């Protein structure tokens, strides 16, 4: 059974292959995403993050979830030497680059705990997959062609990983190099990361994209992660381990 909801400004899709998933259960999963949106949406003035940016909450009063997310953001900033950062051009805190993958991971854990073993959760192009699809094969994930979003340039077969793609083609240039903030990032247009979980894949895809062409080397150095990058000239570059996921091209 598959359902889609529009939350956090993006379509969120959940498919559970196991036959006994109920409507009530799907509602519970989407309710989790709604709660995340209520807390972390920078578009909602009533959210905790908006109130923090307005100076209405002191650090000691942050919710445990907010503290956890901000600590993870700090760690990611250090790990990527600043290429991942949550202060935007206006000087406000915007952790959404990490929250999405983190929330998908948490929702997948929620579905795990309920005993389901074949499912996926997808939000805005980032995916957590478990087990097999309805054809009893690894989930077939298509990577969008950054030059023509109607087309797919790569198909990978995955079972228990996270997949995240960072790119520029949907909303224009919104990922910045923190060390040259006013310069547009133009040398690469898409960075896909496959890793043990979607939270890790998401935050590293974000940072790797900001690094430009060197980002694929950053991913190559991370044990257990693989990457697939497309540059502005239409050349794709893969880490060697990425090939294990690729389904035979036609």
């Amino acid at each position: 059974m598959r359902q889609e909801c529009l939350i956090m400004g993006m379509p969120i899709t959940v498919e559970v292959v196991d036959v006994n998933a109920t409507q009530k259960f799907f509602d519970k999963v989407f309710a989790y995403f709604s709660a995340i949106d209520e807390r972390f949406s920078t578009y909602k003035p009533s959210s905790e993050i908006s109130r923090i940016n307005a100076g209405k909450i002191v650090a000691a009063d942050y919710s445990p979830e907010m503290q956890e997310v901000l600590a993870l953001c700090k760690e990611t900033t250090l790990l990527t030497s600043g290429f991942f950062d949550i202060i935007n051009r206006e000087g406000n805190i915007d952790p959404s680059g990490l929250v999405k993958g983190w929330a998908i991971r948490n929702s997948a854990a929620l579905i795990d705990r309920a005993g389901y073993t074949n499912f996926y959760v997808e939000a805005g192009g980032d995916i957590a997959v478990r087990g097999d699809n309805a054809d009893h094969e690894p989930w077939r994930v298509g990577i969008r062609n950054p030059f023509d979003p109607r087309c797919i340039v790569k198909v990978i077969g995955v079972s228990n990983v996270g997949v995240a793609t960072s790119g520029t083609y949907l909303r224009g240039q919104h990922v910045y190099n923190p060390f040259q903030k006013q310069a547009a990032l133009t040398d690469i247009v898409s960075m896909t990361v496959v890793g043990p979980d979607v939270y890790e894949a998401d935050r590293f895809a974000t940072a790797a994209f900001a690094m430009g062409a060197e980002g694929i080397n950053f991913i190559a150095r991370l044990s257990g992660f693989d990457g697939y990058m497309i540059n502005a000239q239409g050349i794709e570059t893969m880490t060697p381990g990425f090939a294990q996921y690729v389904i035979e091209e036609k």
Partner: protein
Amino acid sequence: MKKFFLCAVVALVFGFYVWQTRAPSSRVVDFSPVVLPSPPVHTPSPPAVPTGKYRDGIYTGSVADAFFGNIQVAAVVRSGRITSVNILEYPNDREHSIRLNSDALPRLISQAVRNQDAQVNIVSGATDSSLAFRASLSSALAQAKN
């Protein structure tokens, strides 16, 4: 004592540089260009020229508290730009600890993108989040600033 410490840092940095440069270069397989279907290719505006904000070299940052443990990074600067970052130390006590490959940099595989004619269950595409970054002042980069 100061001299000894300086020599030790230089030796460490030099040793790191040597370790970096033994890695093989990427192999590029250049297929003939692919004709993509309409609409026309999105051509971004030309990139801004880097202003050489950082001095060339390899800079090792201080050990920093990353909440879950310690992190230490080294940044490599060439032509005024950060070309790579290396993780020297990372917390080991986390459930999902990240390990660095101890091997040389793996060979990357490059070719022209080609559209696939295949059915898929899910599509992975660009994130929509309004990601924002600021210049982080890790100690490695503070040392590198002009």
